[in-house]
């Protein structure tokens, strides 16, 4: 029986009322008195020496307040990187400076050279066009392998090469893996690319800087997934403003998908300029600007080898990846191809020996960082593709090959340093086969054939590490931050609650699902709980939202704080009823004395806390407000199985998705409707990556897909009606809600399903095609079918 409120209920998203009626309050809706506007003059070449920037004509243009160049930021810190990787030799990665405005060189198309602050946007733009910039063009470094060759032009002259790091994991396993592969009965090798993507949240980035001469406090309004992280990074490392003089506010945010985790130059600029000019300064990114300034995602080039014994058991796995960092290190870029990627290479399988090598490379392209899934999609894609290829080479059922190699006992320590706490991969696979109606595939295949279409079926599994992350562990791995989360629960006198969380909602529906949890714990109506997030001035220090961490980590902090509230409320209730605290029971918002008919309502207790006339003041402080910080003891490990059915038009190469089924194990589920929505969105992004999205540069470092005319986003008619299921639930063993996280699964699990399905369709039609790089656009599929 579905519940109609509390944990497990599909409560309607309360935030949608404002989003759908135009009442959302986004950063661009913020206009401050006396506000000026900034326009950034950006490099239109990928690589060059800045010989001269002459702003004199621009300064005299109408409405211009001030023109800033790199020289104005010479004494200001650069944008920091939040994660340091140690390479195979034990040395720290090469870490270049990342100035707010370019100094000496430009390193990618879009690199900011100067910033014009003016009375209006158009005046700022007009004046920016009057800036005379002299750039000595340098050859651009675009291809990663070419970037590592001797004599290649260097993106950063002060580094020894374009290699950021050469990382080996687990380095001690290297020789054993090599030996196992050498002596294996069968080795399947696959070379592939994980295509570069542009995140494209619906809302482009915006920053508004403000400064109060009265209080000496700076405020930044920004489109961020983690305002506290921005406050810490920008305050401590860039502008030298202590936290108590810096407030960062991220109000309604229209999607992030990772791209709004990072600290960007425009945020620092607006905050800096507002103080320098003593007036608010606003920047609103255009969509065109977003393409060349928002951190991109993925962009891995990989060779993977899977070794099997004569009985088709996986015996070893070796992967070598080149990961594009772009021109600078974005905030968490180094962690993505390493700890968020290498640690997932075991997948759902008991491969005993694994070695992962990653070379991170600087190029004259936009910085690359986390994008929905961040490292885990790249791991899943190569693993699930090579298993599929192995099955085809060996002539065995790809589903059964996976099943044969499943991890079935938990906890399970992988050879890549993580311990899966719980899971049941057979259960999700069985559920998938049921909901995808695999039994009916042959009939559908025959129908497609009748219509002249090639039908294919792709199945794969996935696992991810979410609930990021145990601070002590990530600290050892190079993180320069803790990854706990926080919550303050403030109960008002009349019983309503305000929960202030360090998590941030930018489409995930926290205001609904978080309220469900707290209301359920107390037994009150969800509408009595308000969720507050996004403002460093009224939320406890928290690390924000990414890595499917909000409910698992932020929700756990909220549970802990609510437990403290309930514990104190029980004491008050015991006092009010003159009973022993041990006998107090809380049910449906009523405190009662066990075995009696005595009870007091939640509201009586909360009122007593703030009007303490009859109150144990000698033992208990008045008031009812508690804070908790929660640091997880392990990652969570959502897992599942996905199936995709495609039709390929043999005349044009066009692929259409005919069916997509997803069976996920997210542990316990708070709001099934929101979980389904998250899976739907993830699947759309995964299908977008697999079939449509192609962020491409030419050899000069010009972005070819710099607008929606050439960058194909998935639209409603590109995706099918999904069949999703999350009834297989092995609750997480180490967080109080037993939840695992659902935000990224769809984007992680779906690309290999799509590609496996297309390869299946082509091979069933007798075509000798073993791999096509994403996106599987019509022309690429046609080329693959007609090669030779």
């Amino acid at each position, binding site marked *: 029986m579905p519940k109609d409120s509390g944990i497990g209920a599909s409560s309607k998203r309360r935030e949608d009322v404002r989003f759908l009626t135009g009442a959302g309050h986004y950063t661009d809706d913020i206009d401050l008195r006396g506000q000026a506007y900034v326009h950034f003059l950006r490099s239109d070449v990928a690589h060059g020496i800045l010989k001269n920037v002459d702003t004199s004509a621009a300064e005299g243009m109408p409405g211009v307040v001030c023109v800033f160049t790199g020289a104005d930021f010479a004494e200001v810190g650069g944008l920091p990187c939040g994660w340091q990787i140690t390479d195979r030799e034990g040395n720290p990665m090469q870490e270049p400076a990342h100035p707010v405005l370019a100094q000496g060189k430009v390193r990618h198309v879009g690199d900011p050279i100067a910033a014009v602050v003016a009375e209006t946007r158009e005046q700022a733009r007009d004046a920016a066009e009057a800036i005379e910039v002299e750039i000595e063009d340098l050859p651009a470094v675009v291809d990663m392998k070419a970037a590592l060759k001797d004599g290649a032009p260097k993106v950063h002259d002060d580094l020894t090469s374009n290699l950021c790091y050469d990382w080996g994991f687990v380095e001690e396993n290297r020789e054993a893996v090599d030996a196992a592969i050498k002596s294996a009965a069968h080795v399947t090798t696959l070379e592939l690319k994980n295509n570069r993507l542009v995140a494209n949240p619906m809302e482009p980035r915006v920053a508004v800087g403000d400064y109060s001469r009265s209080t000496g406090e700076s405020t930044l309004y920004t489109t961020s997934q983690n305002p506290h992280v921005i406050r810490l990074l920008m305050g401590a490392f860039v502008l030298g403003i202590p936290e108590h003089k810096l407030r960062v506010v991220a109000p309604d945010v229209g999607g992030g998908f990772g791209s709004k985790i990072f600290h960007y130059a425009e945020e620092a600029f607006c905050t800096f300029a507002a103080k320098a000019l003593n007036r608010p300064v606003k920047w609103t990114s255009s969509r065109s600007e977003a393409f060349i300034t928002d951190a991109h995602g993925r962009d891995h080039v990989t060779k993977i080898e899977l070794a099997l014994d004569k009985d088709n058991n996986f015996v070893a796995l070796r992967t070598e990846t080149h990961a594009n960092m772009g021109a600078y290190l974005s905030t968490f870029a180094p962690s993505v191809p390493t700890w968020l990627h290498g640690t997932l290479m075991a997948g759902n399988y008991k491969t005993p020996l694994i070695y992962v090598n990653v070379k991170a490379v600087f190029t004259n392209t936009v910085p690359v960082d986390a994008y929905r899934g961040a490292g885990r999609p790249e791991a899943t894609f190569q693993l699930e593709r090579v298993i599929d290829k192995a099955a085809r080479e060996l002539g065995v059922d790809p589903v059964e090959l996976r099943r044969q190699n499943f991890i079935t006992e938990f906890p399970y320590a992988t050879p890549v340093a993580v311990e899966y706490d719980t899971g049941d991969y057979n259960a999700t696979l069985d559920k998938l086969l049921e909901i995808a109606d695999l039994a009916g595939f042959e009939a559908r295949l025959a129908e497609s054939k009748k219509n002249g279409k090639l039908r294919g079926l792709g199945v794969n599994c996935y696992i991810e590490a979410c609930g990021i992350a145990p601070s002590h562990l990530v600290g050892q791995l190079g993180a320069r931050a803790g990854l706990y989360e926080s919550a303050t629960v403030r109960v008002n006198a009349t019983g309503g609650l305000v929960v202030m969380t360090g998590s941030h909602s930018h489409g995930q529906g926290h205001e609904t699902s978080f309220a469900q949890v707290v209301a359920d714990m107390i037994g009150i109506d969800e509408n009595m709980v308000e969720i507050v997030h996004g403002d460093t001035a009224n939320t406890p220090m928290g690390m924000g939202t990414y890595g499917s961490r909000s409910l698992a980590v932020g929700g756990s902090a909220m549970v802990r704080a609510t437990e403290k509230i309930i514990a104190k409320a029980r004491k008050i209730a015991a006092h009010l009823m003159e009973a022993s605290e041990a006998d107090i029971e809380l049910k449906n918002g009523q405190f009662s004395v066990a075995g009696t008919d005595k009870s007091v309502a939640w509201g009586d207790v909360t009122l007593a806390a703030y009007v303490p006339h009859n109150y144990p003041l000698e033992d208990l402080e008045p008031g009812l407000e508690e804070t908790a910080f929660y640091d997880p003891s392990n990652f969570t490990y959502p897992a599942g199985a996905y199936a995709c059915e495609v039709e390929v038009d043999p005349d*044009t190469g066009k692929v259409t998705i005919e069916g997509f089924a997803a069976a996920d194990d997210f542990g316990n589920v708070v709001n099934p409707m929101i979980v389904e929505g998250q899976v739907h969105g993830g699947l759309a992004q995964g299908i977008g990556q697999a079939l449509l999205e192609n962020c491409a540069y030419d050899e000069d470092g010009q972005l070819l897909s710099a607008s929606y*005319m*050439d960058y194909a986003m998935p639209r409603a008619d590109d995706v099918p009606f999904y069949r999703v299921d999350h009834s297989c639930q092995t609750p997480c063993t180490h967080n109080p809600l037993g939840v695992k996280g659902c935000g990224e699964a769809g984007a992680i699990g779906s690309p290999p399903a799509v590609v496996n399905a297309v390869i299946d369709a082509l091979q069933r039609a007798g075509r000798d095609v073993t791999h096509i790089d994403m996106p599987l656009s019509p022309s690429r599929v046609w080329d693959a079918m007609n090669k030779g």
Partner: protein
Amino acid sequence: MYAFDIERPTTLAEAVKHMAASEENQALGGGQTLIPTLKQRLASPEKLISLTGIDEIRGICEDDAGRICIGAATTHAEVAAGATAYPALAALAGNIGDPAVRNRGTIGGSLANNDPSACYPAAALGSGATIVTDKREIPADDYFEGMFATALEEGEIITEVKFPVPQKAAYMKFEQPASRFALVGVFVAKYADGVRVAVTGASEEGVFRWSEAEAALASDFSAGAVEGLSLSGDGMISDLHGSGDYRAHLVGVMTKRAVAAAG
């Protein structure tokens, strides 16, 4: 966008006068290409002369020769709904862009711009239409002069397009995945005196007639008649979305499908 002035004449004569006033003045149809171009600051006309308020160049009628005559300021949505006497043309118009584009974009604007991937040039050339301007009548065969190039002179305004109605016709578009413009679009029309096959999206020279296919279809109007024919990929557009060879191949596929759809 740079600052500009705008005029909204209600008669063709006024519009012609405004256009003649300065070479820096620019006619504005539905603005589906021009406005984004202005927003990107890729053009800086002094003055825009909006043509959509001129009733005399708007609407659909039939002339004495039985031709469907469409006023230049008629939107795609209006053609989709109103060109019932020429179903293939109505279908083409109804599948341009999305509803917002179809409610703003005009046939005159599309033909004046002559985007190499636009749909309307294929219909006009494939139908042997006549492009009527404030000065003269231009046969479609003389009108299209390559990518974004036409026979229009400076300040000349398209007022009407006259389409002879074929016995059979169909348009098949293979969409570029991102823009959903035609990666290749083929308009096939069978008239009493012959078959016309016009191809958009494919060539670096813009819309063109595939004469080999026209000849084959004239004697045998069936998909099979095109079977052995092929075009070279040389001179075809080659980009992120497909090579010249791929486009050349698609021309054959879309031609066959258009013939089959025409029935």
